[in-house]
């Protein structure tokens, strides 16, 4: 029979970071999450806890989430010190409770980084990522006037590597898991995605310089090859993209 039949209920103790606003001191608070089906996702478990908090006239835990299928990049929290929790290549919304055991204590905290201000509880402000993209994470073409799509052949291998990098969902787990709170994997993924394609080459140099500068301005730290970002990235984006970013950046400086 399928493993779905093995679902059961577990009881957990949650320690959740509660912080009313960006300038207020936060603290860990303890909650019981009882009768949690192991088929639930982590966020569905939080839904159940929140329903109970609301019915008891207490403030529910604020957390960002939207698609709940691992692609929008909106959700994310540190679970027992790991970005998006213990499962490799998994966003928080795709983490299921079958990976926890009865009577576990689960510590839930927001992304912590100077560049990501806490808005409330587990919700952080990641607009710095948008600013980095605005600095050059695009190819400058306007709508209309583009040539036929098959005019420029792209070697399949280049297209595949570009796609590997373009899979980034902009969730911020790389920053949250890095001891330096560096955004190099995020920037490296975008620089690689576009530099690997012939369409992106004309602006490759200016893009690498502008995005790195904006990254520094936003208060992200430097990369010291800790490789935590690659280990925790829910889309398993490789740090070879950071190496490629470094190459593109050096090349751009030499021009």
């Amino acid at each position, binding site marked *: 029979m399928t493993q779905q039949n093995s679902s059961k209920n577990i009881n957990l103790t949650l320690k959740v970071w509660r912080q009313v606003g960006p300038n207020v001191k936060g603290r860990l608070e303890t909650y019981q999450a009882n009768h949690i089906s192991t088929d639930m996702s982590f966020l569905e478990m939080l839904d159940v806890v929140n329903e109970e908090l609301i019915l008891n006239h207490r403030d529910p835990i604020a957390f960002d989430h939207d698609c709940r299928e691992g692609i929008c990049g909106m959700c994310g929290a540190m679970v027992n010190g790991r970005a998006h929790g213990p499962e490799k290549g998994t966003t928080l919304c795709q983490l299921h409770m079958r990976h926890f055991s009865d009577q576990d204590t689960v510590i839930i905290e927001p992304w912590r980084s100077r560049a990501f201000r806490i808005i409330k509880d587990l919700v952080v402000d990641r607009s710095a990522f948008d600013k980095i993209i605005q600095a050059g994470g695009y190819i400058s073409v306007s709508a209309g006037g583009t040539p036929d799509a*098959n005019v420029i052949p792209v070697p399949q291998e280049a297209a595949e590597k570009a796609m590997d990098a373009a899979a980034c969902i902009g969730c911020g787990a790389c920053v949250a898991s890095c001891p330096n709170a560096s955004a190099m994997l995020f920037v490296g993924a975008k620089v690689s995605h576009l530099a690997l394609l012939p369409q992106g080459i004309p602006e490759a140099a200016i893009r690498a310089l502008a995005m790195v500068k904006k990254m520094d301005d936003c208060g992200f730290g430097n990369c010291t090859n800790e490789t935590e970002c690659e280990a925790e990235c829910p889309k398993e984006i490789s740090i070879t993209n950071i190496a490629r970013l470094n190459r593109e950046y050096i090349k751009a400086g030499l021009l």
Partner: protein
Amino acid sequence: MQLDSKAPGGPLPEKWDKHLFELKLVNPANKRKFEIIVVGTGLAGGSASATLAELGYNVKTFCIQDSPRRAHSIAAQGGINAAKNYSNDGDSIRRLFYDTIKGGDYRSREANVYRLAQVSNNIIDQCVAQGVPFAREYGGLLANRSFGGAQVSRTFYARGQTGQQLLIGAYSALSRQIAVGKVTMFTRRDMLDLVLVNGKARGIVTRNLVNGSIETHVADAVVLATGGYGNTFYLSTNAMASNVSAAFNAYKKGAFFANPCYTQIHPTCIPVHGTYQSKLTLMSESLRNDGRVWVPKNPGDKRHPGQIPESERDYYLENKYPSFGNLVPRDVASRNAKLQCDLGKGVGETGLAVYLDFQDAIRRDGKAVIAKKYGNLFQMYEKITADNPYETPMMIYPAVHYTMGGLWVDYNLMSTIPGLFVLGEANFSDHGANRLGASALMQGLADGYFVIPYTIGGYLAGTKLEKVSADDTAFKAAVEAVEMRIKKMLSIGGKRTVDDFHRQLGNIMWEYCGMARTDNGLAKAKDLIADLQVEFWENVLVSGSGSQFNQSLEKAGRVADFIEFGKLMVTDAMARKESCGGHFNEDYQTEENEAKRDDENFCHVAAWEYAGDENEPNFHKEALHFENVELTQRSYK
């Protein structure tokens, strides 16, 4: 009011060209004098914002998420259609047009659909130039695959993440315009009302979701690209924040709502497994290229799928529809899955699932080839169900996915309110009663990149726009109404949570206004929803205050609108006394259980006009004229 589609006359292939020539232009220097509001940053809103800004308009763009990159277009998996005929298999603009009209069960507007097919090719060119990493053949040219309702391969894709990649393309174009100051971006904003001055759309009221402040924004035109209303059903494949509120506010301000009963139930979703479940996950239609759908021949057969021999399996789609097989359109596939489960042949714990089996494909092509095509989907399936689809067949069941109905728009994509334009899933125009796979991305981008940039110019150049400011009484009144409603919701202090009400609404809608409807069931649903609405306003419990980050309050407003909107869906479903596409009323079916249209009486768009909270909406009709296709009983046999 007579609904005028403004579709140009003349031969079909020349209509758009003719219309473009006849549209008034705004000269480049004057474009910078206009302000345009765009609500939503999915494929339609993102591409519209970027393109309007590129042309020189000043654009203010709004989204509910923390970044415009998160809109739910991002979750589209399978692909985007275009009539490129790169596969050399006989595709053409006319064939894409025809497939879309037929797939929509002859309930869409010919001129719009033809234009969609025409600009489909420009979209692919545009996206490739932006750096969208579409799948490619060894020679470096673009690859294609097949989707339901078509016998050609015309779907372009980027693994199972096509929506993500196209959205990142639109988001990057938008980001470029934010950087040069042509777009002002407002994130974490909920649009709570549309403001009309002298009968024209001139602005919106928003709530800042971070600090709760109520804000007003003035413009010369408003563009809604706020997606569909699938979450009326509580469980759907939509994102958690997807809602009908912006469109419903516009409806209450006078925009007609067209065909709200047309909802698409997608055949391949992961089955429901518990009451706490918050959403359903789609498994891309592209899987039906290689997966074979089957159930055990004998009802109640609870053996493991591996122990059921070939001779005791019913590949019901292949048997019943030999020419389209597993690639019949979504409405047909969904209904047949329900039919099998109703016969007791459903599989899994709940009996509400059918198998989607890849064993033959893996045997034929090898695991590596299948992994390359669908790897991320298989992985997602395994994460949710803990089953490995390389070894055990997937279990799937239909789920609410897309809504073909939406605000009524003319050929210019303008609603019945002058200056209010509606794009993408939020409008009704292109998919008739059923949307074909890989056509939503096409429509969103067509509207945003290649239609609205021209048609909005025609409106702005040809309309006298008075000077308006946020001090106008219309804005003040709208703010007051929004604040009152928030205050009321917070003050009820009842005993049931917002989610609890939403779940109940979803159950009513799925039971009586879902995959199969009946006249009696719909009448019952109407009463149940009316009762639910009364109870909501007496017994809902919303925590916190209005002047803070408050997700419970955000949701309360959306669910209140879903409840009211549910009534409108049911009203429309009751009025359409036929079956067509996604609207299947069991009282109107052929002997073979296919949808039975009534072209004589229902070959029209039903457009509903709000007539006050206490009254039934007024019905208006746009007759559909087919000059280029012959209406036939859809057959995929």
